[in-house]
């Protein structure tokens, strides 16, 4: 098969293609188990295989994919034909940043293959957790396990051949109940990084049992809590909400394809312009952000992107100043040319596709915020006069240029004169992106820093869901509109 793929790439080159690559998925196995109130509502697995072909012809992309690979030349021809018609409407011919041709492999860190664990053991685990969640006050219990194991082979016309073997584990527990006003309240636990590997060993029953006890206890606190007040105050975001704030108002805003207008028809644009790099004060001096695909054990660490670029750790925001973007080979060339200055020194390796049948686009890797020097969560609370600690994403809505946002969270703890006073429910906050990040007044130390996984980041047309991570500390922002 590999030889045939290489022959087809050569054939398209001889027909005039300036570049071609293939992503062959010999096998991707996924499994999802969903238990709702003790019922195994979903007991599903899947296997997919196929190939996606990307061709560059006269500065335009064509792409074709199929699950039936018995007629490989037809798939390559289809991609080439798509590129030829696209070449009839080109305004900025696609150029790809230089790269080194690599022969390489990447295997994500995993000790115990989750797809090899007997189904009965996985179901028994979920059932055990369900029993632990079945406590007074709880009316809905959800337990979800997702596993994915894929082998992909990337070959391009520049001589690269990269094999990736990636295993992912995602887990989710949630308890819910109606409060006295008839409003559903929930507390959720998502498995984040607990160690340096992410196989079945991530599913530690002792740790999960502790999380069951915590979310049941917090749900019961919510059920008797008052509503979040409407006020202007400080918000202290724990990692369970801080990750989403970072994701939506830094991560997406700094995708270079968005900045260059490639997502305007659907996902939206960005308030950031090419002129802003090196100048824009995105946040306070306490804010340093990086796109770090080298973080050990995260879905945002994948060895090589789908342009064949090795994983990197790049600064995006340095002490509050915007310095970098999430990008791939095509966009850095276009951005540098349009800015008439070399903003980017080559691809940062963030071009990824969710499946063989989707085309690679700029996706977040691990968009991380450096830990700060403002102590622990307790220290930050102690130094806060009037505010609220928030955790657990509940709703999110962002302006089309990522310029403003509205978030709702599961849990809030009011802070008065340096002390946590009451738990509150139905907590929300909103703001303007730049104003908000410039109001960052405290960044927690290493003890508050966690890697939070994201399993459902959506973008692109055709739509793609991507997995990634955020390494983030507890942060405090002042003068925020709360409770509306």
């Amino acid at each position, binding site marked *: 098969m590999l030889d045939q793929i290489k022959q087809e790439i050569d054939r398209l080159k001889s027909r005039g293609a300036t570049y071609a690559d293939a992503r062959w998925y010999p096998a991707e196995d996924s499994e999802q188990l969903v238990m709702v109130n003790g019922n195994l*509502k979903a007991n599903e697995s899947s296997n997919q*295989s196929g190939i996606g072909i990307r061709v560059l012809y006269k500065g335009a992309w064509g792409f074709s994919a199929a699950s*039936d690979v018995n007629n490989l030349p037809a798939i390559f021809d289809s991609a080439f034909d798509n590129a030829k018609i*696209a070449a009839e409407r080109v*305004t900025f011919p696609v150029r790809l940043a230089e790269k080194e041709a690599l022969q390489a492999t990447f295997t994500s860190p995993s000790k115990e293959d989750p797809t090899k664990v007997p189904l009965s053991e996985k179901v028994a685990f979920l059932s055990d957790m369900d029993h632990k969640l079945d406590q007074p006050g709880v009316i809905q219990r959800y337990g979800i396990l997702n596993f994915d194991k894929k082998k992909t082979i990337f070959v391009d016309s520049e001589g690269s051949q990269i094999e990736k073997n990636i295993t992912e584990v995602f887990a989710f527990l949630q308890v819910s109940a109606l409060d006295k006003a008839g*409003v*559903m309240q929930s507390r959720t636990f998502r498995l984040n990084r607990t160690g340096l590997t992410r196989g079945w060993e991530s599913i530690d029953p002792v740790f999960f049992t502790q999380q069951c006890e915590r979310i049941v206890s917090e749900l019961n606190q919510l059920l008797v809590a008052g509503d979040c007040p409407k006020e202007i105050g400080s918000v202290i975001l724990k990692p369970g909400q801080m990750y989403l704030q970072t994701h939506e108002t830094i991560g997406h805003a700094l995708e270079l394809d968005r900045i260059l207008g490639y997502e305007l028809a*659907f996902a939206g644009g960005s308030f950031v312009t090419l002129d802003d790099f090196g100048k824009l004060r995105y946040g306070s001096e306490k804010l340093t952000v990086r796109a770090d695909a080298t973080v050990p054990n995260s879905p945002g660490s994948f060895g090589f992107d789908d342009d064949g670029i090795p994983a990197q750790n790049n600064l995006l925001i340095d002490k509050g100043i915007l310095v970098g973007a999430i990008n791939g080979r095509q966009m850095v060339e276009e951005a540098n040319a349009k800015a008439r200055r070399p903003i980017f020194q080559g691809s940062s390796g963030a071009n990824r596709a969710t499946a063989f049948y989707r085309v690679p686009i700029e996706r977040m890797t691990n968009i991380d915020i450096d830990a700060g020097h403002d102590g622990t969560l307790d220290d930050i609370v102690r130094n806060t006069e009037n505010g609220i600690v928030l955790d657990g994403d509940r709703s999110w*809505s962002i302006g089309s240029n990522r310029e403003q946002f509205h978030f709702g969270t599961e849990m809030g703890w009011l802070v008065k004169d340096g002390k946590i006073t009451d738990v509150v429910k139905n907590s929300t906050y909103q703001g303007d992106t730049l104003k908000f990040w410039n109001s960052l007044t405290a960044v927690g130390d290493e003890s508050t820093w966690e890697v939070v996984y994201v399993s459902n980041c959506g973008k692109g047309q055709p739509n793609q869901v991507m997995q990634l991570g955020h390494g983030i500390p507890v942060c405090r922002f002042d003068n925020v509109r709360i409770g509306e």
Partner: protein
Amino acid sequence: MNDKILNTLKELRAYALQRKAEVSISIHAEDSHLMRFANSAISLNTNEMLIRLEITAFEGRRRAGYEMITDLEDMAKLKQGVDHAVEMAHLAQPLTYEPSIPVYTTDFLDESGYDAALANLANAERLDFFNQVSKGLETNELKLSGIISNGTNTLAMINTRSEHWQYFLFTDCQVTSVLAHSTLKWEVSAEQSAQKKSELKPSAMHDRLEKLVDLYQKGKPEQLPLGNYDIVFGSAAIGAWLEYIVYIGLDGGEMKRGNTFLLEKDLGQKKFSSRFTLLDNPTRLETFPFRRDFTGIERKLFPIVENGVFKSFVWGQDDADEFAANPTGHTVMHLSLEVKTGQKPVNSLDELLAMPRDKDILYIPYIHYIGLVNPTEGILTGSSRFGALLLKKDGTVAIPYNVRVTESLLTLFGEGIEWLSSVSEPYNVSRSYGARNPTSIIVPRFMRVNNLEISHSNSSY
């Protein structure tokens, strides 16, 4: 009809029967084409031919599903898929209820939603469509974006309870065109949904874009003060709000789990405006309907809200099994929602602009990124986008920076509805995550709702 698909189903059914297994099997074949535009160029031109084989195995109260994205040539591999599903079901934990296995009493073939001309739309035709849409409108500053996505879906299913099968074949097309100002950052858009090629009207999209561009170039942008406004929503915005009514309002299983703002006690009660009637109407081909659900129930016109009175939840088979309810023919990939039109003869942007007004009215054609603030109270939030206008009392038009609306669906479709247009159109709400699942909602072209709160107002784009 694709004999290969049907014969594969029959052979796998025979294999399952031979090994005394209870299974239902479906094949979903999609042929998708998407041409995407950005910065006035074709930024991506793609096609995907994917075949999904889905097997659900049953063993009493035990159930398991196995999906393969594959080809149909390797029958041994497909049979292994059946084996795998059966084995998973055997190892599963029993449900607390007995899951139903459908019994099809007749073969059912529905190709009424198929249009060969749309299925065979050529690359050159897709490009020509967009060239017509944007003719004369692009400049050095005004850049074209958008998509034209068309596809053919084949969905066929069979199970071990009977030899009969169901087979659906339909075509769809979704078009979005956007003109965006590269430095000022405003955007205007036009959209279309089509089930057949003859429904594609590039001139209509062109005219809308031309009108909005003219208004945006002449109008002065302004930040709206926070407060309450009378808002006219366009079809895209109405469709976007309505999608959430399904998720957090109408689903019987979710109601039983406490996740909806409509409750059992609300049945027969007036919960919305008398002007609001919502049905599931599988007779409308524009909604890419399923005329039988996947359990074999014939799908008919199904009232959900009538003149503001909540008439019924929708029940899929599995939730009906779990909660001992009667399934309502809604075990399908998507509903065929239709909002009945009103009396207002305001059915075009020109007619909206010409409408006499005694106060400022905000026109929001599109809602971006809706968030579920509080599902059990039906509270959503989202921002305006793509061509909002402030129609001033003095007859002039201003350009508002984007604003945020945070309201309950009970309010958005409540007593504040002043009027609905007398003409409706399908608004395409399709997403292409996972399997192709074209979905349109038929909505009036405009809906005016009075006294809605703007909770955030941008100071720029």
